[in-house]
């Protein structure tokens, strides 16, 4: 039986993990490879690295991070942030990433999804969608630039389009829930589940283990991603998985 996945997300800037990770057990909490290893040992099913570097040097450093992670760990991981061209995808996949995640580049040029899927296979192409509820539109709209700019497009329609273009998976972040720790956006995930048949990763809003249970059982998400609750040790990957297992959710 296929298992629900728990995915810690690491924000990496110029080769260092940001968002102040608080782990006493780590020698260097800013080292992405060391943190990746730590999460692997806790039972993380997959990892996402989000590169938020502002410089070319920073992006080159990300390639080293990917290479080192792939040399050290034997679990799958995705790299997102700053991936705009086929060449960018090639660099990260050759360095050992299993998937690349496209966000604003795909919005500006949707054909990049198809190009990537044709060249590397759909399983390598994740499309990240940042969505926020709009009362006046009566649907979820897409946001870019960390939620600052609204893109005039419904997230539901966009999800259908990217699935048709060959995306292998969607990473959906609720901008309403992000950082609030009040739970994943069940309504958004349920609406997406009805229109696409590719795997869905829920993101934004994780505050405790019950939230993971809700998104898996109520919205049938395939995976759930969280950053701060793991980084700040409010709970651990292991605790979340133990809880889910006790509740009868299929977990590795």
């Amino acid at each position, binding site marked *: *039986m*296929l298992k629900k996945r728990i995915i810690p997300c690491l924000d990496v800037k110029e080769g260092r993990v940001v968002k102040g990770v608080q782990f006493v057990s780590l020698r260097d909490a800013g080292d992405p490879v060391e943190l990746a290893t730590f999460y692997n040992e806790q039972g993380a099913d997959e990892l996402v690295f989000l590169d938020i570097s502002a410089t070319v040097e920073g992006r080159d450093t990300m390639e080293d991070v990917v*290479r080192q992670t*792939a040399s050290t760990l034997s*679990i799958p991981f995705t790299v997102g942030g700053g991936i705009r061209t086929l060449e960018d995808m090639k660099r990260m996949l050759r360095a*050992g990433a299993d998937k690349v995640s496209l966000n604003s580049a795909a919005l500006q040029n949707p054909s990049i999804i198809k190009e990537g899927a044709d*060249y590397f296979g759909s399983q390598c192409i994740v499309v990240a969608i940042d969505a926020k509820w709009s009362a006046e539109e009566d649907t979820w709209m897409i946001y870019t630039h960390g939620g600052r700019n609204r893109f005039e497009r419904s997230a539901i329609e966009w999800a259908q389009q990217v699935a048709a273009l060959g995306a292998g998976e969607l990473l959906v972040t609720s901008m309403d829930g992000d950082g609030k720790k009040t739970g994943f956006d069940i309504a958004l995930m349920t609406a997406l589940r009805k229109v696409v048949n590719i795997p869905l990763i829920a993101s934004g809003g994780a505050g405790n283990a019950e939230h993971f249970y809700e998104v898996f059982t109520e919205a049938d998400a395939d995976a759930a991603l969280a950053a701060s609750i793991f980084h700040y040790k409010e709970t651990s990957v292991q605790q979340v998985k133990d809880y889910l297992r006790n509740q009868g959710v299929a977990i590795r």
Partner: protein
Amino acid sequence: MKIGIIDYGMGNLFSVEQAVKRLGVDVVTSSDATELQMADALILPGVGAFEDAIKCLDRSGLCQLINDVAVSDKPLLGICLGMQLLFESSEENGQHKGLGILKGHIKKFSSIQYRIPHMGWNNLHFPQPESWLTAAQKTDGHVYFVHSYYASQYDEQQLSAYAQYADQVVPAIVHKDNVTGMQFHPEKSGECGMALLEGWLNTVQVKEQTT
């Protein structure tokens, strides 16, 4: 002992290479048939489309090498698309002929009961006892799959492990004499994946000692 990884321009070889190295074994990654022939065993990896892969292999004379190895006693391991290529044919984007080393055909998942691709961690079932799988059976038994096509009409005798995906039996490990295929990615499958790779490498070592 040296393992040859067949590089035919498809997919990510780095992770496979690193996983084998982590197990303390020398690796040569090459597209050159002569160089690959020197290795004690070969790994055929692969990510991407079936037709492209067969064309790339054919163009570089590697189909011949793989067919020669299959009838010798040198171990050969196909991973993911590399396993699918070992079969007779695939229906991925039209009908395409495979290497025909194993009996069976590659079909697309087609059901509304499950999502495609079959992506994520699934647990293995082992229908028959095989000594090289013992170490893997002692782990949590989960491996990482990502694929939209699966092997069908295969020889049941050659099925070493399978996974269950909704109502579909997914052949996960196939094994015939010196030829092995793994549909999942052992190099990305944590403890169980490493145990399977190690189990396979041990069979290479045993072969080496007896020849």
